[in-house]
C-alpha cells in the first residue's frame, strides 16, 4: 500500500563514503561504478580535519568516521558546514564506548571516565560536528535499528521539504566489541553522507523522487556483490545500494527499508 510520495523532486547536492577500502567519495565513486578496483590495503582510520588537531586521534571511531564523510560531502558540494541542518543516523551508536561503559560499570563503577560518558550519547558525532563546524542549525540523531539508513533518509527528505533548505545526512556504524558483539553485530568502519535539498546546487550529483510503501514482502535492492563485500557486516551497509546507483549515474530505482515491512522507493535520475 502506498503511504507517501514526495510532492516534489529532491536533489543530491553532495555525497561521500568512507570505509577502509573506499576512503572518500572520488575513490568510492570509481570503485562503486566499477571503473576502479578497490585498494588492496585498508586505509587508516580517518582523522577528521574539522576537529582541533589534539582531538583528531582521540575522537571515538564513530565520531571520526561520521565527520570524515560529512566534511567530504560539504567540500564536494561547496557548502559551508555551518549552513546545514543535519540528520545523523546510527544503528548502534559507538559500540566500543558501550563495551567500555558496561565493562567499567560491572567492575569499578566509580571509575567511569567523564569524557567517555559524554561521548557515549547517541548524538556524540552530531555534537562534535556542530561544535567543529560552528553550526547552530538543528541536528537530530536517530536509530531505527537495521532500517536506520532508510528512516534517516526519509527524515532528511522531510526536513529538506519542510525547511526548503539543504540538509546533511550521515549514516555510520563501527565495529562491535567485547561480549556485546554477539547480540549487536557490526563489522568495520563505514559512513555515508548525502546532502539533500529542494534545489540543484552547483555540484549536483543526481535528483530523485521518493515514495513510501507498506509491503510485507518488500525487497530491498542489493549492491553488486563485489561492492557489498567491501562493507559486509556493517550495520549501516544498507546505505550502499543508493550510493552505488549515485556513483553509476543515470536512471535507477533503489529500494531500501525504512522499517519492518516499510519500504522506501527512490527513483534516481540524472541531475537535470
Amino acid at each position, binding site marked *: 500500500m502506498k503511504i507517501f510520495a514526495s510532492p516534489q523532486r529532491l536533489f543530491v547536492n553532495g555525497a561521500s563514503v568512507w570505509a577502509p577500502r573506499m576512503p572518500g567519495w572520488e575513490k568510492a565513486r570509481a570503485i562503486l561504478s566499477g571503473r576502479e578496483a578497490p585498494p588492496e590495503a585498508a586505509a587508516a582510520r580517518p582523522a577528521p580535519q574539522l576537529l582541533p588537531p589534539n582531538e583528531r586521534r582521540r575522537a571515538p571511531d564513530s565520531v571520526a568516521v561520521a565527520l570524515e564523510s560529512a566534511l567530504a560531502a560539504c567540500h564536494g558540494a561547496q557548502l559551508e558546514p555551518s549552513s546545514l541542518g543535519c540528520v545523523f543516523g546510527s544503528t548502534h551508536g559507538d559500540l566500543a564506548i558501550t563495551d567500555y561503559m558496561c565493562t567499567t560499570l560491572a567492575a569499578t563503577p566509580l571509575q567511569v571516565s567523564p569524557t567517555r560518558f559524554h561521548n557515549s550519547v547517541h548524538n556524540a558525532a552530531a555534537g562534535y560536528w556542530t561544535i567543529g563546524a560552528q553550526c547552530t542549525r*538543528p541536528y537530530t540523531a536517530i536509530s531505527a535499528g537495521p532500517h536506520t539508513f532508510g528512516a534517516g533518509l526519509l527524515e532528511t527528505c522531510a526536513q529538506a521539504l519542510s525547511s526548503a533548505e539543504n540538509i546533511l545526512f550521515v549514516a555510520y556504524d563501527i565495529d562491535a566489541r567485547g561480549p556485546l558483539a554477539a547480540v549487536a553485530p557490526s563489522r568495520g568502519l563505514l559512513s555515508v553522507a548525502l546532502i539533500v535539498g529542494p534545489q540543484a546546487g552547483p555540484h549536483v550529483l543526481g535528483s530523485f523522487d521518493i515514495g513510501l510503501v507498506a509491503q510485507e514482502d518488500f525487497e530491498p535492492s542489493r549492491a553488486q556483490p563485489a561492492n557489498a563485500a567491501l562493507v559486509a557486516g556493517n550495520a549501516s551497509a544498507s546505505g550502499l545500494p543508493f550510493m552505488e546507483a549515485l556513483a553509476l549515474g543515470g536512471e535507477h530505482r533503489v529500494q531500501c527499508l525504512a522499517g519492518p515491512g516499510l519500504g522506501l522507493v527512490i527513483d534516481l535520475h540524472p541531475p537535470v
Partner: protein
Amino acid sequence: MQPTCITAYTATCAAGAGREALLGALRAGRGGLRANDFGREPLATWIGRVTGVEDTPLPASLSNYLSRNNRLAWLGVQQDGFHEAVLAARARYGAERVALVLGTSTACIGATEEAYSRLTPAGEFPEDLRHREVHTPNSTAEFMQRVLGLRNLAVTVGTACSSSAKAFAQGARLLELGIADAVVVGGVDSLCGSVLFGFNSLELISREPCRPFDVARNGINIGEAAAFALLERAGDGPRLAGFGESSDAHHMSAPHPAGRGARIAMTEALARAGLAAQDVGYVNLHGTATPRNDEIEAQVVAEMFPAATHASSTKGWTGHTLGAAGALEAVITLLSLESGLMPGTLNSRQFDAACGPQIRLAGASGMAVHAMSNSFGFGGSNCVLLFSARDAT
C-alpha cells in the same frame, strides 16, 4: 506552522502514574524523589524512581524485549486510556498511517549492563539476556511498534536530554508532509548504572533533593519516566503550536555561556507559532539544578520574557528524566494549560541572583493560553515546544 492537535497524552514518573496522580502531586507540592535505593552499591544521591517498574510484566509474545525501559514504556502506555486512544487512531487511519517517534537517552542499556555483570565463564552474555531485541538503541521504539501494532515509521531520537522534545518536532513534520495521519510521540528513560555513575563522573549529581535555580543548587537527581502524546492534524485537544530546534555549537557537556542555542530555540518556537513572548503564560524550564544550566537559562528567560510570565522547573518533583524529560515536561505543560495550575519550583528556597521575576518558587492558579517547555541536551542539542489551549484562537 499548521497547529498539530494533541488528542491524547499521558505520563508516568516518580511523582505519579498517570495525569491525575501527577497533577495531584504538582498541586500538593508532593515530590516523588527518594534516597537512592537503585542498584547494588547505590551512590549517595536522590532519585526519581517509578514504583513497581520491575514487577510490570510484558505481553508474553514480547518477552525478548524484557528490560526496565520496556517495562516502564508498557506501564506508561496503560495510563489514561492512552493505549486505547492509539488503537482507535489505528482503526481510524490504518496501521500503516500511524507513526511512532520515541526519544530516549538510556534505551535498554540497563539490560546490557546487567549482562556484563553476569557474563558466563566463557565471557558471553547469560542466556536470559542473549536477545538482540534489547541491546540496541531502537529497542523501545521497536517494542512499542509491536505492542501497538503500527506499521509506519518507528524511530528513536537520541539527542540526550532533548530527545523526546525533538520527537514532537519530528512527529509534527511527518503530519505536515502527509507521511502519517497520526503519530505517537514520547520519551522513555529508565534508571541504570550508565546515567547514575556517568553523571557522577562529571560531578553533576546532587547528594540532596535537587533544588533548581536555588543559590545553593549543586546538581541533578536522575529520574525515570515514560510520557506519550498522540498527534493528529485535527481533533479535540490542546495543540502543538510551534517548536524550535538549535545547536549550541559550543561543548559536549556544558551549555553555551551566553545561552546562544537556547535563545535561538525559544525564538524559533515563538516565530513558528506566530506568537510573541508576552503571549506565553507559563514556561516549564529545563531547570536541572546544575550550576551552569540554571544560571544561563535564567538569564535568557529574564531577557526574553516580561515579568508577568510564570516560569518554573518541575524537576524537584520528578528528577531529571533525561531522554524522557522533553515528553514528561510537555505533559506537565499540557496539564498546566488544561487545569489552570502553574507549578512552582519544589525544594528550592532562595533563588540565584541570575533569576528574574519570571521564575517562581510558589505555584499559582491561572489559565495560560499558550505555554512553553524547554529541553536542552548534551552535545548542545536544544528543543523548545510551544503549546496552546484547546480553545485558543
